[in-house]
């Protein structure tokens, strides 16, 4: 197909607006598929065929955010509110066809609330919704492999404006006016970043999208790319037009095959239409885009390490300045932004910077997407206006803690962040408030912990991660992470001393000051915040040799209560090291010298005879 003109694009947009058909939209992100969405999809097709129904479109979409009840689907009927169903296996799919579609009756027990109003094609947003979706506006709505659907929902209007209505200064002004700050973790104002690159004269400039998403336990960027790849592509071109760059690179982690595939499809489609490539929409603006894969190194999310990796080298950070905005990829000025940052851009340009600036708090504008996981009922992706409280996310949207357990802490900022206790749940979420209470926004991982989680163990987990991921270039980080890890390990074995805590604090402070890159500078944060917020629990490990959650194996012993044990032999058969002795109907005994404290006996005993202490 020949490249299209502006008129063609506008026509394409009108032609693809809502049709009269009933739409059954199935969430088919990585996790939807893992939960069986493919089978659900086929079940719908089969049942529609069996019933000989016409005018029903079944199509895939990205993450709807209700990850805890996957597979999820939406039934769209024109003139009626959308209905979202969760836990839709093949059986439920048949029911939905036979009851909802054929008889017009809702299928009870599977209906879930619509999380947010649609900001596209709507003037007034209902404030009753708990969430507000800008970044995720198309996730769960469009088929991400169909460019026409993106275009029909105001897609590429931002690019149109950037090419035909706005000067590069105008674009910059809109972004500045919006108050958008980087969503990759640091919260640097995006407009200022672009301005640095824009101001510099250079024969070549680059736009890079950071899709390395290394925080384990976070998947906002994956979901965005899988659900709405064009929004990022469009944004990168707008950035290119603004700063004068004609080349872009998306650096994405290789662990996300579906996101990579959908990006490739999206890029091919925009190229085919002439929305990407040479002389876009007949203008003199050209933009070339390429995907580069990460290879499982957390540090490559750091921008200078990322650049080294794109250049084909070991991903080791270098000192800043010079900043990549000035001296970046192959030494040329480079704008590096996170996926979520970019996904906001088309909306900012389409609706205007001042529209965006109305959402959020004074210093943190817009929304933030969180991956809410861990010990939480409604685990999933949530997008809320900045300023929403942690309490609202954890207990309102998240539904609280499952299995009647008590809330213990919520962790934000991943390996660079901190834990927050109940006392801080009223903190409004924005960049500055979270730092003020000892954590940070981070990229959007939000992990909830309950009474069964040991905070020393959590701190150890994050430190171990940093030990593995430290690139080893500078001593404070290479040695510091290891030493702190060893001290925590010692504490978890009940061999800790009071002076160890001071050592950790001192080393942590040194790492924060002297490490070369953000990884080392922030690696002590989780442990320091645990020591501060859960001092009593840490001291218990040291003074009383006790782990109240029962997670630190060296501090627990398993014994068998001789009264309660009926001698059923189940535990003895289950013990992986055969250290439980006893005959049928005779009380059993554990040989403590051999026990590896796996807890298997505790799990299988039906008579509460195995005691953990």
């Amino acid at each position, binding site marked *: 197909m020949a490249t299209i003109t502006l008129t063609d694009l506008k026509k394409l947009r009108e032609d693809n607006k809502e049709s009269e058909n009933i739409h059954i939209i199935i969430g088919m992100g990585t996790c939807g598929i893992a939960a069986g969405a493919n089978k659900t999809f086929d079940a719908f097709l089969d049942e529609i065929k069996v019933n000989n129904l016409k005018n029903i479109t079944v199509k895939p979409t990205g993450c709807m955010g209700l990850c805890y009840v996957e597979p999820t689907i939406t039934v769209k009927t024109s003139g009626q509110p959308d209905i979202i169903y969760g836990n839709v296996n093949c059986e439920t799919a048949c029911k939905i066809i036979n009851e909802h579609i054929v008889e017009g009756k809702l299928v009870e027990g599977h209906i879930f609330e619509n999380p947010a109003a649609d900001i596209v094609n709507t003037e007034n947003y209902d404030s009753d919704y708990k969430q507000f979706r800008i970044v995720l506006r198309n996730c769960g709505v469009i088929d991400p492999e169909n460019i026409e659907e993106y275009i029909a929902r105001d897609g590429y209007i931002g690019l149109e404006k950037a090419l035909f209505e706005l000067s590069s200064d105008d674009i910059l002004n809109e972004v500045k006016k919006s108050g958008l700050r980087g969503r990759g973790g640091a919260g640097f104002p995006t407009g200022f970043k672009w301005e640095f690159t824009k101001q510099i004269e250079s024969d070549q400039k680059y736009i890079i999208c950071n899709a390395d998403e290394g925080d384990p336990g976070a998947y906002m960027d994956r979901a965005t790319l899988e659900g709405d790849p064009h929004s990022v592509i469009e944004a990168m071109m707008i950035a290119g037009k603004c700063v004068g760059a004609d080349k872009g690179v998306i650096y994405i982690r290789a662990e996300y095959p579906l996101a990579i595939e959908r990006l490739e499809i999206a890029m091919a489609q925009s190229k085919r239409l002439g929305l990407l490539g040479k002389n876009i929409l007949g203008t003199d603006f050209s933009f070339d885009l390429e995907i580069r894969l990460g290879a499982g190194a957390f540090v490559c999310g750091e921008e200078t390490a990322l650049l080294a990796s794109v250049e*084909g080298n070991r991903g080791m950070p270098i000192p800043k300045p010079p900043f990549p905005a000035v001296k970046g990829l192959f030494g040329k000025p480079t704008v590096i932004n996170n996926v979520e940052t970019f996904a906001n851009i088309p909306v900012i340009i389409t609706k205007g910077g001042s529209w965006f600036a109305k959402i959020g708090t004074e210093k943190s504008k817009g929304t933030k997407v969180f991956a809410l*996981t861990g010990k939480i009922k409604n685990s999933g992706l949530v997008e809320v206006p900045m300023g929403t409280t942690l309490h609202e996310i954890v207990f309102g949207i998240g539904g609280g803690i499952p299995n009647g357990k008590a809330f213990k802490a919520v962790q934000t900022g991943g390996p660079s962040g901190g834990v927050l206790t109940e006392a801080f749940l009223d903190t409004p979420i924005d960049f500055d408030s979270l730092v003020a209470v000892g954590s940070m926004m981070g990229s959007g991982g939000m992990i909830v912990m309950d009474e069964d989680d040991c905070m020393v163990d959590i701190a150890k987990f994050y430190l171990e991660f940093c030990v593995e991921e430290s690139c080893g270039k500078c001593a404070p980080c290479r040695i510091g992470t290891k030493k702190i890890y060893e001290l925590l390990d010692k504490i978890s074995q009940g061999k800790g001393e009071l002076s160890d805590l001071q050592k950790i604090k001192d080393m942590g402070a040194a790492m924060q000051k002297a490490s070369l890159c953000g990884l080392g500078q922030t690696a002590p944060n989780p442990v320091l915040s645990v020591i501060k917020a859960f001092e009593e629990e840490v001291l218990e490990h040291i003074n009383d040799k006790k782990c109240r959650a029962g997670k630190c194996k060296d501090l627990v012993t398993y014994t068998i209560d001789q009264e309660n044990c009926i001698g059923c032999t189940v535990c003895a058969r289950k013990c992986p090291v055969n250290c439980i002795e006893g005959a049928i109907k005779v009380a059993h005994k554990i040989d403590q010298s051999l026990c590896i404290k796996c807890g298997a006996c505790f799990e299988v005993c039906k008579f509460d005879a195995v005691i953990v202490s």
Partner: protein
Amino acid sequence: MQTTEEYKITDALASFVEKWREKPGNLIMILHKAQSEYGFIPRKIAIELGRILDVPLAKIYGVITFYNFFKLEKPGKHNIQVCTGTACYLKGGIDIIEELEILLGTGVNTVTDDGLFSIESVRCIGCCGLAPVLLIDGEIFGKLSKDDLPKIIADIRDR
């Protein structure tokens, strides 16, 4: 385990190399392609690539060893990747690994004697909502409990 198999540059790899030859910073992309062809990066292939691309072998190994994703040892026919990212860790990812070790009689990063399975611990595959999860042959299994594992293994064995 030292492999005695002979590895040759496949056609797919050769044409990929041609496509990327002139692009700066191509090494990592080419190594990705190589690993997808062989399941790991055989020494012979690393040497060949060095020759074709005119890159010192030391640089190639420098890159391979820096990145966790690249493997120097041949994994099992079915490599079981168990997530130990934060969400999966909290929900018992380690228990899943330990149970697999018992079921398969092999440890993390080693291959079973029949060459069928290997176990690997990975950091987050982005399905944290379904934690704990594991990945075998591109298929993700979520909301796992230890009791699900024997069936998963048996099904894969029968493939």
